[in-house]
């Protein structure tokens, strides 16, 4: 494992996500709490990045900004060359639909929809016909090893299986980037391992760019690069290459 200073990481080569001078603060009553201060860094294409740091360090905020579900107070966030901070609300929604796949800590599946329908849901925003949507959702579920659970409701699946359905939902639109917020935080060790292996496979075999927030060093070890946030500063970049 090599520890390098942030400035050394900005190579400019094949950058997918570029954050420049990004600041974000929240209002808590009358108080304004700064979370991120003038943050600048890049994420390369096909990267599997783990964001670590203590609670309140701003890692989830950074993930939300990259995913376009929150907006910075200052600075720009360019994804694939497009500054998403300039997009109006509705266009940003379309951008997310086309470019971002989400994996949440608590899976966040629609409880009334089956596994297949949950995976199909993002595809309803595309121009695909019903049959093609179903085929793609089936394929995504088979990629996470759940071909035999298509008709099950989330409540009929284990935590690990639900997270795999969530991964299938995240990849079904073939997004530019997958964002995962503590994807193993609610899973037992074995399920966590399975989920992380799937994510690794998606990155390695399918070239998916993944940004993952985690507290768990074991989970972070599955990434190609680890970044640590401390009070809104990316003080150190820990680069780790998988064998």
């Amino acid at each position, binding site marked *: 494992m090599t520890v390098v200073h942030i400035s050394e990481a900005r190579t400019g080569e094949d950058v997918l996500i570029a954050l420049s001078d990004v600041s974000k603060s929240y209002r808590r009553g009358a108080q304004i709490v700064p979370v991120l201060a003038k943050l600048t860094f890049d994420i390369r294409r096909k990267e599997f990045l783990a964001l670590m740091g203590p609670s309140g360090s701003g890692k989830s905020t950074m993930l939300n900004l990259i995913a376009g579900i929150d907006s910075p107070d200052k600075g720009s966030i360019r994804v694939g060359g497009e500054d998403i901070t300039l997009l109006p*609300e509705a266009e940003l*929604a379309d951008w997310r*639909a*086309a470019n*971002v796949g*989400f994996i949440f800590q608590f899976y*966040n599946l*629609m409880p009334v929809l089956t596994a297949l329908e949950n995976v199909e849901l993002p595809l309803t*925003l595309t121009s695909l016909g019903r049959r093609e949507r179903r085929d793609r959702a089936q394929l995504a579920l088979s990629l996470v090893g759940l071909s035999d659970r298509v008709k099950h409701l989330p409540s009929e699946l284990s935590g690990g299986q639900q997270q795999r359905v969530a991964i299938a*939902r995240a990849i079904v639109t073939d997004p530019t980037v997958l964002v995962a917020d503590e994807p193993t935080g609610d899973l037992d060790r074995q399920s966590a391992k399975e989920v992380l292996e799937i994510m690794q496979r998606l990155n390695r075999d399918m070239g998916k760019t993944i940004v993952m927030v985690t507290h768990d060093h074991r989970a972070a070890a599955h990434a190609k690069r680890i970044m640590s946030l401390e009070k809104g500063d990316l003080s150190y970049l820990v680069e780790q290459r998988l064998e």
Partner: protein
Amino acid sequence: MPLLLSYSLRNLQERKLTNFLTATGMALVVFVYAAVLMLDSGLKQTLVATGEDTNIILVRRSAEVEIQSMIDRRQARIIESQPEIMIGAEGAPLISKEVAVLISQQRRKSRQASNLLIRGVGPAALAVRPQVRIAEGRMFRQGSNEIVIGRALAGRFEDVEIGSSLRFAQRDWRIVGRFDAGGSGFDSEIWGDSEQLMQSFRRDFFSSITVRLADRSGFDALKARLEADPRLTIEAKRERTFYEEQSRLLSGFIQMLGLTLSGMFSLGAVIGATITMYAAVASRMMEVGVLRALGFRRSRILIAFLVEALLLALIGWAVAILLASLMTQVKITTLNWTSLSELAFRFVLTPGIVLRSLVFALIMGFLGGFLPAVRAARMKIVDALRVA
């Protein structure tokens, strides 16, 4: 079925009790609304059906009802000689010179007195009004003390049945038949010979004259001529218009009372739906956050929750219409405030009422669902996801 619609529908099934109660509340309000419209429709249909389009009724100028009207025999003769009047099979003009008198008769069930309209009609009365036919017994004989009763009266009043006698105007009148006037206002009347009734009631004038036109387009010319004739103080109206006007007062009251009631009830139902939908939004904040994160626009979220509220309203409407359709079996008798006589009619469910009730229910659903849907749509994604 589109997936988002199916999602809304399945969410309705998730909270069965709450949604059942909300839909029931809406159903009751829609039922009241539909019932009022059905009552009004039944009243109008009964009175409008009383009039024939080819018939003209002549009453004294500015008399709104027949009991206020007087036409003397000299005027009646002038009217009788008009060329637009159809000539019957027996070579006589189809004209019925009539007298309308109210009598008080005791109701069989409540033992309370109510007004019955006695109509003295001419020999051509049945030819002038082909919708009226003798259903049981026979027609009264001219020049006799015989009378026939409308089918809506049978069993409702003391002594009003075939074979019995009614006493009014110092005479006993024998009931010899029952006529069917096709659900019109005549069904609530008693008919007898006009000359006999006039004598008994010591009157020397008719209340109204109804004539059948040879050609319905002859109305304007006949009306203009009669109303311009200085010897006559009468007003000519199409029979249908005349009876339509008779329904206005009662119809206006029914509508005002009924719609005010449904308006007030609907406020309660809308508040109920709003509470239910707010609860639905609150319990599904995470889902809203996920949908928004996946790329569903605010407008889609708004529509999804509105659709849910509208589906609730739709269920309420379906139940209400089912209940309302049962009401068509119910017969209502009330005093017609214009003619002051008792009138029997049914709740009538028309396609128009079904449609208006649907619109009413959907408006309630929309109003109930709008604010919660706006709240869901305006929710910040990160806040919604934080709930999870």
